[in-house]
Every structure is written in C-alpha cells, then in structure tokens.
C-alpha cells in the first residue's frame, strides 16, 4: 500500500516506450506493441467512456430518487406505473448505442482475426501510389504494411505442452531440411532450486535479472517489422497463447490448428502467460517474444540451425539499436 501512490503516478507518467511488462498499480492495458493492440485500445477507450457515462447516469438517477423521493421529502407516493414514452426511449436509445458500439467492434474484430493477404496489400499500396492517391495511401498504410508485405510471412508453429511451449520455424531449415524447433521453458517454477536448474541447463548467469514468472530459457525470436503468422495446436490439454501488449490470444487445442498473426515494428522484449487452465504448472509456462532487427534475427537463425541454442539465445539478449536493454528493471 505504501508505494501505491508512487506506483500509480509512475504508471500514468511513465513513457510507454515498449515495456511489455505489467506495471505495479497500473490501471489500464500494457502499452500497445502492434496495430492490432492499438486499435483494440482505441476501441476500448471509447467503450470506457460509454460505460462510465451509463454507470454515472444510473448513479445520478439513484441519488436523485433517494434525495427527492424519500419519505421525508415526499410524504404521499404517486401511483403511476406506466409511461410509454419513457419506456420506448429506454429501449430504443440503448439499442442505438449498441448499434454504434457494434459498428466500431466489427472492423476491429475482422482486422485482428483475418490473416492479411500480403499480395493484395502490396498491390493495393502500389496502385494507390501509382494513381497519386496519397491521402488514401496514408490511411491504408496505417493498418497495412506494404514493405513488410513484400517480404512475406514469417511462419511459426506453436505447440502448447504441459508445461512449456514448442516453437518451430518451418521455413528456416538446415542442410538436412530440418526446421528450427525448440522448447521454451519458463525459468521460474516456484521452486527454491529454480536458479540452479536454469544455470545448469543453459550455462547463463542472468537468472536474477529476469522478470519472475515471465522469463523463459529460449525465447521466441521474430524480426521487427515483419508479418508473423503463427499456427497453434496442443500436445496434451488446452493451453492459450497470449501476449497482452500484442492484444492476441489464441487457444492451443489438441486436434485443431488455430491461426493468428501480428506485426511488431519496435524491437523489444514482450511477455505473455498461458491463459487456459492446463494443470499444475499453469502459472509457470510464460511466453517471451524477442523482437529483433532482421540482421540479428538472421544471425540467431544461423546459430539455431547450427544447433547452438545457448549461443543463439545469448545473441538476442542484447537487442541491437535499443538504448535500455533491461526495461523491466526500471518498472518498479
């Protein structure tokens, strides 16, 4: 409680650079790292006004009737029990408000749920530019990224397991044709010996610098400014792949292949946690995504192909072009 006020003010005034960690005492979403999240947050902010207004209206009405129509203020109750006009108003007006909400909701929903057609994005962008429609082009590129579209998707296969994630990159293969594939374990399992286990397994000594319950041994790595498409399934029970700052959440279901996409422009470290109860270590299978510049991603991929997972992981611990490497240290 003591640091509540400090935390509150920190959360309000902190520069939302790209920190993808929960901030103590924060009141709202983590800063958006994708256009999907930006749009979801904009929509949520509108909704927040609407629902605050509704609660305020009900509160004011309640206070008014309590003050004006209590027994002392109004000895004889009136006897009316119908008023068609009022009843029509409070049926139609909420319905109209809901239509308004839906009109904002659907474009947002379709944007995040329909994996973009990259060929179409590149072509549309070109034709808009060619016909000199710069304003439309500007509006179009707010939600679509032609440069990234030219480069195609980075495909990642995600598999939820009890209790870790398997990531594989089917398009990045070594000489034998085997794709990069690795298991990503949370380094914290709530046990006293977690640090020793981590150090023995990875040879790294940065355990204490990692955010508790969020860090993993081998993070997912994606290049910045690229369309990432992930396919997701589960090996045993249902899990859910979530990254709050991306505003994505897709269940990993045995026997189903679900799909999602995201594009992050800012390099950085982004964390998420399994979001479907999956057994004992449900709280201990976090998701860590390191978004790095393309060159650094390629180097990581080479090391992964060579089978040197630890060298690869170490190569993305410092992200090129980033001023502060340990954002999470400054959050408390």
């Amino acid at each position, binding site marked *: 409680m003591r640091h509540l006020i400090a935390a509150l003010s920190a959360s309000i005034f902190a520069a939302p650079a790209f920190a993808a960690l929960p901030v103590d005492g924060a009141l709202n979403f983590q800063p958006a790292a994708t256009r999907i999240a930006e749009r979801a947050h904009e929509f949520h902010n509108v909704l927040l006004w609407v629902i605050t207004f509704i609660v305020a209206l009900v509160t004011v009405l309640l206070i008014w009737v309590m003050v004006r129509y209590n027994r002392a203020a109004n000895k004889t109750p009136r006897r009316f029990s119908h008023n068609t006009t009022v009843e029509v108003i409070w049926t139609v007006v909420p319905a109209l408000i809901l239509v308004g909400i839906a009109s904002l909701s659907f474009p947002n929903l379709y944007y995040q749920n329909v994996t973009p057609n990259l060929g179409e994005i590149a072509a549309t962008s070109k034709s808009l530019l060619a016909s000199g429609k710069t304003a439309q082009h500007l509006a179009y590129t707010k939600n679509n990224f032609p440069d990234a579209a030219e480069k195609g998707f980075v495909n990642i296969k995600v598999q939820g397991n009890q209790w870790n994630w398997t990531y594989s990159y089917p398009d990045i293969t070594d000489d034998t044709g085997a794709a990069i594939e690795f298991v990503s374990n949370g380094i914290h399992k*709530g046990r006293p010996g977690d640090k020793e286990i981590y150090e023995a397994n990875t040879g790294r000594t940065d355990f204490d610098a990692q955010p508790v319950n969020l860090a993993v041994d081998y993070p997912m790595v994606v290049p910045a400014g690229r369309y990432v498409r992930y396919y997701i399934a589960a090996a045993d029970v249902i899990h859910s792949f979530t990254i709050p700052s991306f505003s994505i959440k897709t269940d990993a279901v045995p026997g189903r292949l679900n799909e999602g996409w995201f594009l992050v422009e800012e390099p950085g470290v982004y964390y*998420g*946690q399994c979001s479907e109860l999956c*057994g004992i270590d449900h709280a201990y299978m976090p998701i860590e995504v390191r978004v790095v510049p393309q060159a650094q991603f390629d180097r990581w991929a080479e090391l992964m192909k060579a089978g040197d997972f630890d060298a690869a992981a170490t190569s993305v611990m410092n992200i090129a072009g980033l001023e502060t490497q340990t954002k999470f240290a400054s959050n408390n």
Partner: protein
Amino acid sequence: MPMDEIALDHGHDAHDHKPGFVTRWFFSTNHKDIGTLYLVFAMIAGIVGYSLSGLIRWELAAPGIGPMLWIQTNFFGLEGDAAITAAKHFYNVVISYHGLVMIFFMVMPALIGGFGNWFVPLMIGAPDMAFPRMNNISFWLTVASFILACISMTVPGGPGGNGFGGGWTLYPPLSSASGHPGPAMDLLILSLHTAGIASILGAINFIVTILNMRAPGMTMHKMPLFAWSILVTAVLLLLALPVLAGALTMLLTDRNFGSQFFIANGGGDPVMFQHLFWFFGHPEVYIMILPAFGIISHIVSTFSKKPIFGYLGMAYAMVSIGVIGFVVWAHHMYTVGMNVDLKAYFVAATMVIAVPTGIKIFSWIATMWGGSIEFKVPMIWAIGFIFLFTIGGVTGVVLANAGIDHAVHDTYYVVAHFHYVLSLGAVFGLFAGWYYWFEKMFGVKYNTFLATLHFWLMFVGSNVLFFPQHFLGLQGMPRRYIDYYEGFSTWHYVSSVGYAITLLATVVFFVLLIEAAVRRRKATVDAHGHGNPWGEGATTLEWTLPSPPPFHQYNELPVVSGKGGH
C-alpha cells in the same frame, strides 16, 4: 386489492399440527420447511465456498507460493518439490470447487430452492407446491450431490494430489482420463448429475405449480414478478440442464468406457464439450440472477410504496433475457479458434441482452421515482444491488466485443465482471430477500443495526475486493494463477484486503442470526392482524398471512380481484 377478508388459519389448530422433528425435517413435504432446509443448506455450502475463496485471496495477497505450501507442509507433511507440486494442485482444486460450490450449492439452492419454495406458493395463493414429495426428493438429492462433491475433493484427482483441479468449467482433455485419471472427476460428474436431476425435478415442480395453482383471479399478467422470475428460471433449468447432463455423460464414457467424444486422437473434439457446456453455462448465469431480479422488484416497490413500474415490460424483459440467453453461449469461447463471422454473430447477439437488462434497471429507478422511499434494510441492499449490477452489466458489454475479449479473456477482468454480477449481484439480491422475508419466515425480528452494518461492510468490502481486479485484468493478469509477476502485487494485495472486510461482514451476519435467535423479538402484527412489518407498500399475498405463516396456508383459496397482485 388482494383479499383482506380471507379466512386464514386462525383458530384451526387441528389443521395446523406440525409433525415430529424427524418427520418434519427429514421427510418433509411442506414447501416452507423445504425452503428453510434449502436456506440452511445453502448457508452451510456458502461457508464452504466462502472459505475456499478465503484460501484463494490468502494465497494471492503476495506473489510467490505461500499459504498453499504452508498447508501442504503442516497438514499433509510434505516437503521439498513434492510439497510445491501438491500446493499448486491444491490451489487449482480450491478455485474449481469454489466455483462449483458457490454456483450449484449456494446461489441456486438459496434463491430457487429457498426463496422459490418459500414464496412462490405464498405469492400465488397456493397451499403448497404441486408435487410436495418430489420437492423433498429435489432437496435431498442436492444434499447427496454436495456430499459427493465434498468426497470428490478428498480422493485422488490428477497428478499432484486429491481432488479435481481443472476449473468449474471442467474442460477436457484436462478433465479426461489423461488429465485427471483419478476418481475425483468421476465423483464430480456423479455429483453434478445428481445436482442436475435435483434441479430438473425442482424446475418441473415450479412450472407446474405456477401454471396450475395460482389463486382464482390471478392471471399470468397479475402474477407477482418473483413468481415470473422463478418461472423463467425453471424453464431455463429444464432446457439447459439436460445439455449439461449429456456433456457430462459423454465425458464419463470418455473417461471410463473408451468413447472418444472429446479426445482428439480418437477423432473427437475437445471444443465440442465447450459448446455443450456453455449452452448450459450461459443460461445458468441467468438462472442465478433472474430470481434476484424478482426479489429486487418486490423490495423496490414495497419501500417506494408504489406499484412496480412497467410490470409487463419487467416480466417480458426476464422472458427475453431467458430466450436470448440460449443463443449467446459462444461468447465464452472467442479464443478457441472460431470462424470470424461466427464471432461477429455472437458479439451482436450478446450485446442485445443489454437492452432488456437496461429496461429492468431503469424500471426499478422509475418505480422509486415519485415514491415515498423508506430506507429499511432490504431497500438498502436492493439499491446496492442496482448500482453494483449496473457496473457488472456494463463490463459485460465490453467483454461481448470479441475484439477486446481477445485481450482480456481468461484474465482478472473477466473474474471482476462475473463477480460483480454474481458475488455482488446475485448475493446482494439474496441478502436483500433474506432481510425482506426474514421476519415472515421465522417469526422473529433481526437487529436492524447489525443488518445495516452487514450491508456497509459487504458493500465496501466486495468493491475493494473486486474493483481492482479490472485493473489486473487489463494489465494482463491471467485467471487461475497461484503465483504472479510482482507487477501485479499492489492490486492483488488490495483485493485481499477487500476479502478481509467481507469476512468481517460475514461475522456480523452470523452474530445477527444468533442475536435474532436468542432475543426472539416477536414479529410485527399490523392493524389488519396480518404479519406485515412493511406497511402499505407490501401488497403481495404472503404479507396477508401471520409471521411465520401457519403450517398449511390458504385452506380457503384467496381470491385476487381487480388490479393488484403485483
């Protein structure tokens, strides 16, 4: 004007003899005694469910694994990693049974079995329920079901220990033989089957009673709103529970007899269980809140001394909530990988529910408008209900939008939302009804100071408990986590402080019960000789009877004439 001149049972002692203790309470066929049994049962189950939530808040007061580990070490003698694994499993068990116990053994028995049994016959002018012995079976099956659930907590469940730790939603494959091989899940299935049978029998009883046993002159459109709410609830139960029973049976045969309904590598689909579960589960949330709506309507009308505003709109708002409640279930499953057009449909359908709900909120306020409001204890609870239910309702509109739900699904935002509508909605409705009918049911008065104190502690406590959970959810704190990153600690701590305040409220509640039982202040008898402490505003039939009502009432049926009855 409901019958003033009815011959009540005064002076008919021969008809009012009560059977001996065992016959009266164990073989009961009397709707009022069964109602009381349900209320006592709900109170016991409520203590269990509430204690489980205490364990949750105790554990989550600070990051790391604390109290759960302490319990495993000190009560079960475990050490090292084994204790930690057991603690993690125990936490999952606690959250699962907290949900199940509160829903199936606290809210439903109290609102439907308790108040429904007590007051539906009294309000519609019936001597008893249509099938008194079936009523008895319903109650005792509920008890059996609760015992099965309690046993299930103590037998081997999944890896890590006893009990089922897969959440109250029982999703396979975690609830399949691969996820929880032990008998705990089988016992739980049996328990829920039994609870389902009990509820279906009860629902049939209510439907038949309400449709056939209303007093002469009480048409459907003169029936009190509480009876309407129970009628709609009973229809929902009748239609929804068989679907749950089907899903549970498939789960049972998957676990024990080699079927593959929900097992992917046998050609089944775990998501199908979710569809079946939520086809039951969504109506279930209205099953829990509709009776509270009915209770609140009567209280608001009584203490405003005005007839309820827009009676027909109120009744049909409940009917339409019930109908729409059956076509919105997949909004619980936006992240399972549904087609986007399907999601868009469920977004639209779900938001429609806000319209009838808004009608109810505004009609309650319009009932108070122009009234002469007395702030008696039940009215304070009812006003609290309206305010808190509004908050829970509007976050429901936010969650209905799949585009936002992808961010907050399975986070504490959802936990905050459904506790606002249930823990602060249904439970406030429950206490409002309790304080409204206490004197009628038990023939003694409660201490109004204690009841008011109970309200304020509960109001402050549950808001401090649940409001910060919205912030946690928006920041990304997932549900059903025993441990969390330190960035979530402040609001978790505040939330646990809120629980402590509600604990005080609960202590006050039990002190109030003991005080009322010891002091035995005589119930009010008004100028007409009726047991009506609330004055002219209380117009429903139960207030024309003495408090407590005679063992058998309405030996001569009351006749409802003209306007009135609601």
